[in-house]
């Protein structure tokens, strides 16, 4: 081919300059969502990153998921923009199909030997066109689709893959096995196939390493007690994830493997491979399965409202933010049964291939029931070949086979300079994987701050073409979004309709408009067809506008010539059951966007300086950890604490479940914070006002009578949380009733009453998981176990009863739950509508607390006389959250905790730029989790602080002085102070300061003379949309 796409040339140039020196700052090993986030964050802070992935494409397990809990966002839709960001980032070099062979050296100067496996395809020649795949005669099971469908021996890993390059499965290829076929090489027009390609070895020098190898799904085959290996209609949850997915084996139809029929009765079995002490199982809880199963149930019901879904479970562990509501949502659906029971697989019915499950309930005893399909909710195992991995990197593993970490810094490994992110630290969900990635960046930054920027490169774009004087030439790209849009909206019909609209010179469809391949096609089309406006009809500008604007720049036109029609959130998702009207609405939305696009004008963005100081609000462990990391990365920090002392909630915690001494750690941390020359601590601090924006905030801080102004570029919200003061169970009436924290303090202080107590009852879920607080406080189950173990250690004879609803000792905490049970702590489940009763009575002359609870096994009331009662009181939002939320314009969730920008992928960011979140201000969490998140928030903050300037939007207000009547209406309403009068030859006129304008447009609404306009949202642009929204009637009148 003569003409290579221009973008490709640039990438080659970039990689060319990379190749000159095999040195970087950091190597990220593992290209799942955690590795991707770590690479992006590191690159953004000016460090050069090698992202090494052993599979043929980045994306990891998240790329195989259909949707993500608890928001049911489409997994690929939110992850794939990050693939493209990585591939386009000038500071990231992606090495796929590459494994680490050896690591030498030490922190600051590692030498990593890599082995690039042969793809048998020259990556820089392959265009991803797929012709070779059409011609390849060999079918192979498709690994990406969990072997449920077939692919070819030469194929692309998945359709949005980055890099979009084919590879040959050497085990299956006829040529590589028997030198018999080379059709692919014959049909490739670009001469990209190299059947004699050899492995390539290279050595890279880096200062630090981030390990993000992720996890493996538990494989039920070896033990095969669930029939997975023998029964066709038993699938794992990861298989089912692919079955649900539009890009999956059955194109998004829920079918069962045996006969490709829609299963009607589906069963999920929880804890497969988890919470098991039998051979081949994992003792720990995998933490994510409860929520993902609920997600799968909700999605199944979305696909087929008549489906009968049955979930056989142990405890329901809905311990994360918004998980409780998610569980309730699944549970309330018609035809959904949650059954608490251990189960065993009965038999496969030979005629139907249905599968029976045996289970038992207290009410009905043992039963056997038949299901069309059985889904095994498999847990999370350590990554494959983990021992070998640990050996190569010289790190230690924990008893569970995951990475051994320091509980006070779960991102560090035993080897300095090697950090971890994601599920290698143990079973965690996507948001935690993402925040630990940003945390790993923060720790690498601490190590390498001195060389930041030395190897960094700036992104280069083709020169912007002036379109002045041209008629609008609009290109419309309509996205199927897999099946998200395509299943509801008739996309070809929308394309056809769009091609007939005024000014439209190109219209086409794409399976995923945001894939690298398609983004490149858009850029090419802009050049080839001379487009000067682009409309993408797909999803939301909130997640995808930056990507497509960037694509316009790649195509050589101003990014503000881009317009997005949201035919997913605004159309296919909300009108999924009315396909005809949905298609009509999609056409309406496209027509409106095309009309607006024709009027769009090129705008210039500009740079705002960044104040390189940070404000951290909250002096607990999260706030101090964040502050210390920022200071160690070379930034000045103001740390505010509302109390008289630093320490926050941790002052009341004495030991962790794992046995760490919290007070020693805390004192050491406080000492480091106080001594650090770049940290300015203010205690007794109250914020009275906040103004400004990212890079340039001003906060008024009051300390006693003194008030002062603090200037800072970013803010970290670490305001913590509080303990609920119970109003139930005689709390406050009897001094034998206390909260778990109070019990802990008494144990630590060697309280005599606690020491001499013979019996103690703990009641869980006090003040939450109820109507007032519809959430789980996450930490209380482990907290009670921790206290129970401590008490048993001191007095093994003590009678301890834990009255609980679900024991939520997720992850490795499960082992301590088991230990407590083994040491004789007794656990009794109670139901929300049958809470325990507590009475103060005298027994044998001695005052006792008589606790009455229904024993579900015996089905009758039990009375327990206790000397002490410990209440697992809820964690409630800090009283200052409302105030802080108003000052910084940050949303709170319905429970009063701060609401992050995106539950999954921006867990420590806010929608407002430059403000970050960590610790219990986000949601209740354990100390080590708060520390991880604090590093995460610091890492994200450094992506701003490390820059000298940030780019501000071009969509701001502008005054036409000729029309200005000097009424001052605009000046009066602008709280940014962005509009002021200035003298002109024609008198005093309003003028907009572009640095201060945020583009809200209130001034425009107030102007009586239409003299002020908001760029990118002009009256004419909006009128054109209104006119197109209701065009038929507009003509009548």
């Amino acid at each position: 081919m003569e003409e290579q796409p221009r973008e490709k040339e640039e990438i080659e140039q970039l990689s060319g300059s990379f190749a000159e020196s095999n040195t970087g700052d950091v190597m990220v090993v593992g290209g799942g969502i955690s590795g991707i986030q770590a690479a992006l964050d590191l690159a953004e802070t000016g460090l050069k990153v090698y992202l090494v992935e052993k599979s043929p494409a980045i994306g990891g397990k998240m790329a195989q998921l259909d949707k993500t809990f608890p928001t049911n966002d489409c997994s690929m839709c939110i992850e794939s923009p990050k693939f493209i960001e990585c591939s386009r980032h000038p500071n990231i070099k992606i090495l796929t199909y590459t494994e680490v062979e050896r690591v030498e050296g030490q922190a600051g100067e590692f030498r990593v030997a890599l082995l690039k496996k042969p793809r048998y395809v020259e990556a820089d020649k392959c265009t991803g066109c797929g012709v070779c795949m059409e011609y390849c005669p060999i079918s192979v099971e498709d690994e990406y689709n969990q072997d449920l469908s077939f692919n070819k021996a030469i194929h692309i890993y998945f359709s949005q893959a980055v890099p979009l390059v084919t590879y040959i499965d050497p085990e299956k290829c006829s040529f590589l096995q028997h030198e018999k076929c080379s059709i692919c090489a014959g049909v490739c027009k670009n001469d990209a196939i190299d059947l004699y390609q050899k492995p390539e070895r290279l050595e890279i020098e880096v200062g630090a390493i981030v390990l993000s190898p992720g996890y493996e799904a538990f494989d039920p085959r070896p033990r095969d007690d669930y029939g997975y290996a023998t029964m066709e209609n038993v699938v794992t949850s990861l298989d089912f994830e692919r079955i649900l997915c539009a890009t999956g084996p059955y194109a998004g139809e829920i079918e069962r493997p045996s006969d490709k029929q829609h299963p009607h009765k589906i069963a999920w079995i929880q804890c497969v491979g988890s919470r098991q002490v039998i051979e081949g199982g994992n003792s720990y809880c995998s933490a994510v399965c409860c929520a993902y199963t609920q997600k799968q149930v909700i999605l199944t019901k979305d696909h087929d409202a008549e489906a009968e879904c049955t979930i056989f479970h142990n405890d329901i562990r809905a311990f994360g933010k918004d998980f409780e509501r998610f569980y309730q949502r699944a549970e309330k659906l018609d035809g959904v049964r949650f059954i608490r029971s251990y189960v065993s697989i009965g038999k496969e019915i030979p005629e139907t291939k249905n599968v029976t499950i045996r289970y038992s309930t207290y009410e009905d005893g043992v039963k056997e029931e038949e299901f069309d399909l059985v889904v095994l909710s498999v847990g999370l195992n350590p990554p494959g070949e983990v021992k070998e991995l640990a050996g190569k990197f010289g790190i230690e593993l924990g008893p569970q086979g995951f990475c051994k970490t320091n509980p006070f810094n779960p991102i560090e490994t035993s080897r300095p300079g090697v950090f971890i992110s994601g599920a290698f630290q143990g079973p965690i969900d996507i948001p935690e994987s993402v925040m630990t990635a940003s945390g790993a960046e923060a720790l690498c930054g601490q190590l390498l701050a001195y060389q930041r920027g030395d190897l960094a490169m700036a992104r280069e774009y083709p020169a912007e073409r002036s379109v002045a004087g041209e008629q609008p030439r609009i290109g419309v790209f309509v996205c199927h979004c897999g099946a998200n849009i395509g299943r509801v909206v008739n996309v070809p019909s929308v394309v056809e309709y769009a091609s007939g609209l005024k000014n439209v010179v190109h219209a086409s469809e794409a399976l995923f408009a945001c894939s690298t391949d398609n983004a490149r096609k858009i850029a090419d089309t802009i050049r080839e067809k001379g487009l000067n406006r682009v409309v993408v009809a797909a999803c939301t500008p909130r997640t995808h506008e930056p990507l497509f604007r960037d694509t316009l720049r790649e195509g050589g036109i101003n990014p503000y010539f881009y317009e997005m029609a949201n035919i997913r959130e605004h159309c296919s998702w909300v009108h999924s059951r009315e396909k005809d009207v949905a298609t009509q609405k999609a056409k309406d939305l496209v027509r409106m966007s095309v009309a607006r696009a024709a009027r769009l004008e090129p705008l210039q963005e500009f740079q705002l300086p960044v104040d390189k100081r940070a404000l951290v609000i909250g002096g607990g462990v999260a706030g101090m950890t964040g502050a210390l990391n920022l200071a160690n990365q070379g930034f000045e920090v103001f740390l505010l604490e509302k109390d008289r002392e630093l320490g926050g909630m941790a002052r009341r915690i004495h030991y962790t479940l794992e046995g760490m001494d919290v007070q020693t750690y805390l004192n050491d941390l406080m000492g480091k914070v106080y001594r650090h020359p770049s940290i300015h601590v203010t205690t007794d601090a109250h914020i009275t006002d906040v103004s400004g924006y990212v890079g340039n905030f001003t906060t008024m801080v009051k300390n006693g009578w003194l008030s002062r102004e603090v200037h800072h570029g970013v803010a970290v919200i670490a305001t913590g949380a509080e303990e609920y003061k119970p109003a139930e169970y005689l709390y406050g009436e009897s001094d034998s009733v206390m909260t778990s924290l109070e019990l802990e303090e008494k144990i630590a202080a060697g309280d005599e009453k606690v020491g001499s107590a013979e019996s103690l009852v703990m009641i869980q879920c006090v003040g939450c998981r109820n109507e007032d607080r519809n959430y789980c406080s996450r930490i209380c189950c482990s907290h009670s176990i921790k206290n129970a173990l401590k008490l048993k250690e001191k007095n093994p004879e003590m009678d301890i009863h834990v009255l609980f609803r679900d024991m939520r000792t997720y992850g490795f905490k499960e082992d301590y739950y088991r230990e407590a049970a083994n040491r004789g702590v007794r656990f009794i489940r109670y139901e929300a509508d049958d809470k325990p009763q507590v009475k103060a009575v005298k027994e044998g002359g001695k005052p006792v607390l008589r606790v009455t609870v229904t024993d579900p096994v015996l089905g009758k009331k039990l009375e327990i006389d206790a000397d002490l009662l410990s209440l697992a009181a809820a964690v409630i939002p800090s009283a200052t959250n409302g105030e802080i939320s108003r000052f910084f314009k940050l949303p709170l969730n319905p429970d009063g905790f701060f609401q992050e920008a995106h539950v999954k992928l921006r867990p420590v960011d806010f929608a407002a730029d430059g403000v970050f979140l960590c610790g219990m201000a986000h949601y209740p969490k354990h100390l080590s989790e708060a520390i991880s998140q604090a590093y995460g928030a610091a890492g994200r903050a450094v992506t701003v602080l490390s820059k000298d300037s940030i780019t501000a939007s071009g969509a701001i207000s502008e005054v036409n002085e000729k029309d200005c009547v000097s009424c001052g209406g605009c000046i009066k309403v602008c709280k940014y102070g962005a509009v002021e009068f200035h003298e002109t030859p024609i008198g005093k006129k309003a003028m907009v300061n572009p640095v201060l304008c945020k583009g809200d447009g209130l001034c425009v609404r107030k102007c009586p003379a239409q003299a002020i306009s908001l760029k990118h949202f002009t009256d004419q642009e909006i009128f054109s949309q209104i006119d197109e929204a209701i065009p038929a009637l507009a003509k009548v009148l």
Partner: protein
Amino acid sequence: MCTGRVDPAFIVRAFTNGADGVYIGGCWPGECHYTTEGNYHTLGTVLLMKKLLKYIGLNPERLRVEWVGASEGIRFAEVMNDVSGKIKELGPLGKSEGIDDKALKFKLEAVRNLLPYIKLVEKERLGGPFATAEEYNRFFASDDAERLFRELVSDKLAVSQIMLLLGEGERLTSGEIARILGLGPSDVTRYLNSSARQGLVRFDEKQNVFLPPGVKEQARA
């Protein structure tokens, strides 16, 4: 862009194009994502426009503002279903209120023409800015607001409608004008007399009809 950017002209444009209802969704008061609290101003806009709609004979329920936070997907769905249900109940714009298409056009155009003036009046005399949503609601429900509105806006609105009607070139008696626009006959006479004094309309005594100053007197067909 903030809901505070929603210009009354956008609302008028939508109704002029034949929309049966207009819904504006904004951030909750006190939860502005900018610092400008434009949502309070939006509430002012909506309350003002409701008064204008009522004045020209349209059901003010056709215009609605509701606060929905970014995390309130379920509330948003409920609100939208409610909005579309209510609008369906209200029926087609104009027809349901007994206004014919022609009169509706004049009325909405009259409102549109008056918007620059309303913006000036608004800044000086009407509607805040207030610090709370309650204050906005209280003010617009008050007698004071009603009086101010009558004094400042309603006369001009009526005159504007009459001028637009006459601008079509028809010769109409004051009674005909009152009937077409649905105004009180005595009010119409009052407006016409004062407009005639200002030279804005002329009265053709022979035929007992009013006409704009530029139009030649001629026999009615």
